[in-house]
């Protein structure tokens, strides 16, 4: 017997309610499920050295601080534009020696300590007190700091350096919690005020970050970032290929980058010109390289293109000035003066200096085998080849592991050696003064002393406009090429390899990898 019309109506209503409930439930689920993946895993062969801004002076640890902390000023991602950070705004006195910062109100560190002018002063004074490795970035420029009121602080400078805002954006200037770090000793602490907070850190194994709910700025799209530390490039590559990590950042082998580019359906390779440079240092205060002709001969003979293509598979590019390409005031001064791999000029200079094929210049070229990656021995070998192609130089390769190498640098043991440079702050001054000013270059084993160079650098530091500074840095570069106390070789590229679907990878000349921009759609 078929159901009555009333019963049919009830059944129809029930079915309709069910359908509406299912559809509604589905849309509710869509609306409330996370839009982005909750966790991204980054793999790296770098290491955190110490989580104390008064002591950390390496690229990777600074990167971590840039993600868990913030300065009074910071760079706008993807640019070299300096924008307000923990300070809403700042003013500069007419003489350029007093910077007044107006701090954001109501902020606190992840341990609950309020952020204010007193904390800013304490953090800077601690740099003066402990004199850790990076403290010179503060002590060379700042005379003292004054608290004006709870949210206003003044920095009094030793000299009116034009790039002081770039310095303020560096980690030694970061305000830190006095509760987390002691006044009179170095200590690892995980407290911050930035977009992420550290929830777990196992040294050399893993760093785990969680989005900081109290951060004043835009919240990261990815709630958790896990950084896993790998021993070497093969392990890092395998981790990416097995899916253990989503992103591989510093450093894969050049061949790995080439391979991943071929797998574009599965991986994204993001590249940008990098601000890190590699160069040769020549010890200028002792034979043989106290003779400028010999320094010029080396500068003429090196073959940068071969290094970039044979060793790095064109993931680096030749560099003809210590100021990297892409930075204002850069000039290809070494190319203009010596050409590239100019054996004829090298031989001429060597002959003038009294050397010949029967009386060769014998030198020891030093390198460190692991610190800059496993390609270093190949770089040294190619430089040896290029120099010996003159027929008038005999090169013995020597190496020392990094701790010993650093020791030898400051003691002037090595007559010619390979070195690298990552910028402390993004300004031509950081690519010139440390290598060329007589007061500082000893720390990099250069031992170069030229009063005209010192004068040019000092003028450029305080020149009031970018145009005036650029003109001075051009003169600095001309003199540097002529004297060749250091010989630029190549400039690195920043390369990130990520699984397809990972977005928000922004690379720029600051080399800061901003985890808080990363996301992947769920």
């Amino acid at each position, binding site marked *: 017997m078929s159901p009555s019309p009333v019963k049919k109506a009830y059944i129809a209503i029930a079915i309709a309610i069910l359908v509406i409930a299912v559809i509604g439930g589905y849309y509710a689920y869509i609306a409330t499920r996370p839009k982005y993946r909750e966790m991204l895993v980054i793999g790296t062969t770098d290491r955190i050295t110490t989580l104390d801004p008064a002591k950390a002076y390496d690229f990777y640890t600074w990167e971590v601080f840039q993600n868990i902390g913030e300065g009074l000023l910071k760079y706008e991602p993807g640019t070299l534009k300096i924008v307000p950070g923990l300070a809403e705004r700042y003013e500069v006195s007419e003489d350029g020696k007093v910077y007044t910062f107006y701090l954001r109100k109501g902020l606190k560190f992840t341990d609950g300590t309020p952020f204010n002018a007193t904390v800013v002063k304490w953090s800077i004074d601690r740099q003066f007190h402990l004199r850790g*490795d990076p403290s010179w970035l503060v002590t060379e420029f700042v005379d003292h700091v004054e608290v004006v009121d709870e949210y206003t602080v003044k920095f009094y400078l030793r000299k009116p350096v034009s790039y002081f805002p770039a310095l303020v954006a560096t980690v030694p200037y970061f305000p830190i919690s006095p509760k987390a770090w002691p006044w009179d000793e170095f200590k690892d602490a995980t407290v911050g005020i930035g977009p992420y907070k550290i929830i777990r850190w196992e040294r050399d*194994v893993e760093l785990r970050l969680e989005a900081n709910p109290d951060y004043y700025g835009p919240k990261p799209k990815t709630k958790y970032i896990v950084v896993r530390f790998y021993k070497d490039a093969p392990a890092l590559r*395998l981790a990416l290929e097995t899916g253990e990590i989503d992103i591989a950042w510093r450093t894969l082998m050049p061949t790995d980058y080439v391979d991943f580019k071929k797998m574009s359906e599965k991986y994204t390779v993001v590249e940008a010109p990098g601000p890190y440079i590699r160069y040769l240092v020549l010890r200028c205060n002792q034979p043989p390289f106290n003779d400028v002709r010999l320094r010029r001969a080396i500068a003429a003979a090196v073959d940068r293109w071969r290094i970039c293509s044979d060793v790095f598979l064109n993931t680096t590019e030749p560099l003809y000035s210590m100021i990297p390409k892409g930075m204002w005031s850069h000039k290809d001064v070494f190319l203009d003066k010596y050409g590239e791999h100019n054996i004829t000029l090298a031989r001429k200079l060597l002959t003038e200096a009294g050397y010949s094929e029967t009386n060769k210049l014998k030198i020891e070229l030093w390198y460190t085998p692991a610190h800059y990656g496993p390609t270093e021995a190949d770089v040294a070998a190619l430089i040896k080849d290029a120099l010996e192609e003159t027929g008038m130089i005999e090169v013995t390769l020597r190496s*020392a592991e990094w701790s010993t190498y*650093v020791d*030898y640098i400051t003691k002037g043991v090595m007559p010619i050696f390979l070195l690298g440079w990552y910028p402390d702050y993004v300004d031509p001054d950081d690519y010139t003064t440390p290598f060329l000013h007589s007061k500082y270059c000893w720390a990099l084993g250069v031992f170069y002393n030229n009063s005209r160079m010192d004068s040019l650098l000092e003028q450029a530091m305080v020149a009031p406009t970018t145009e005036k500074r650029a003109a001075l840095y051009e003169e600095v570069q001309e003199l540097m090429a002529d004297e060749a106390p250091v010989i630029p070789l190549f400039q690195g590229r920043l390369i990130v390899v990520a699984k397809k679907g990972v977005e928000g990878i922004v690379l720029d000349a600051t080399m800061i990898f901003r985890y808080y921009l990363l996301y992947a759609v769920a």
Partner: protein
Amino acid sequence: MSSLRVYIASRLLTAIPMVLILLTVVFVVLRILPGDPVVAIVGGHAPPEVIETLRRRLGLDKPLHLQYLDYLWKLMRGDLGKSLIWGQRPVIDELMERFPATLELSIFSFIIAVLIGIFTGVKSARNFGKPIDHAIRVYGIVTYALFIPWFGMMLQFIFGVYLRWLPISGRADPFMEPERITGLYVLDSILTLDFPALISALRHLVLPSITLGIYISGIFTRIVRSHMIEVLRMDYIRAARARGIPEGRVVYRHALKNAFVPLLTMMGLQFALLLAGAVLTETTFSWPGMGTYLLERILYRDFPAVQGAIVFIAIIIILINLLVDITYAYLDPRIRLR
């Protein structure tokens, strides 16, 4: 049993000078190597006065003999010193963070090595002269000649990259570590009834344990084989067979027991060496154990950490060897009466 006690006491007493000699050699060698640890800590930018202040603070400005005596005095009080680098944490704290990882890997590798070694050794001995015997002998040689990083990477490629069955590095997936009780992830997972953590820990153990286990199993295979061949020829074995005892019991209950005693020494030695940290395996699998710790600290000239780690390892090796000898002496009274 008094002879056993005397034996143990005499072995313990001889261990002390052994540790002292080792410590002295390490102390001297570390200090005569080139490279200033203070400069390695502060870097090249630090002014000379900062370097000297740190050198004084770390006691590295004192004469060598005073540094040595100071170190011995601290050691007698159980203080292994503080790491010179990165936060200057007590060395013992750092070692205890790393040691469980090495212990866990050692235990699982050891079990795999022993099981494979005994099975293949017995199989080979029972089939003396036959093709299977030759094949197992080749296995014993090849496994011991394996280059661990290569072998480990091959397993990573096959099981991690191509098959995607197993993870290739670390001890557990992110957020899957068990609550720390002993630091042994498998044990801690069981104790806390955290089964997802247990699965994650076991999955991460598979590849490094197999790599190391297979590498060591070759030694056990050869020892078991050679002793089993000897024992299987003895009269009492022939008599047991003649009485109709099943072959399995003859081999595993009667013959293996006698062949086991010399194997015990090698097992003890190998286990002790595993606990020292299998650097190559740990490096290949990013396993955060003692091996990688020691390697890193050597590169950074972290004297106290290196000395502390070596003392720690020496004591472990001595204790394990002592345990082996005691077990040996317990099993064979003739040993302790010599």
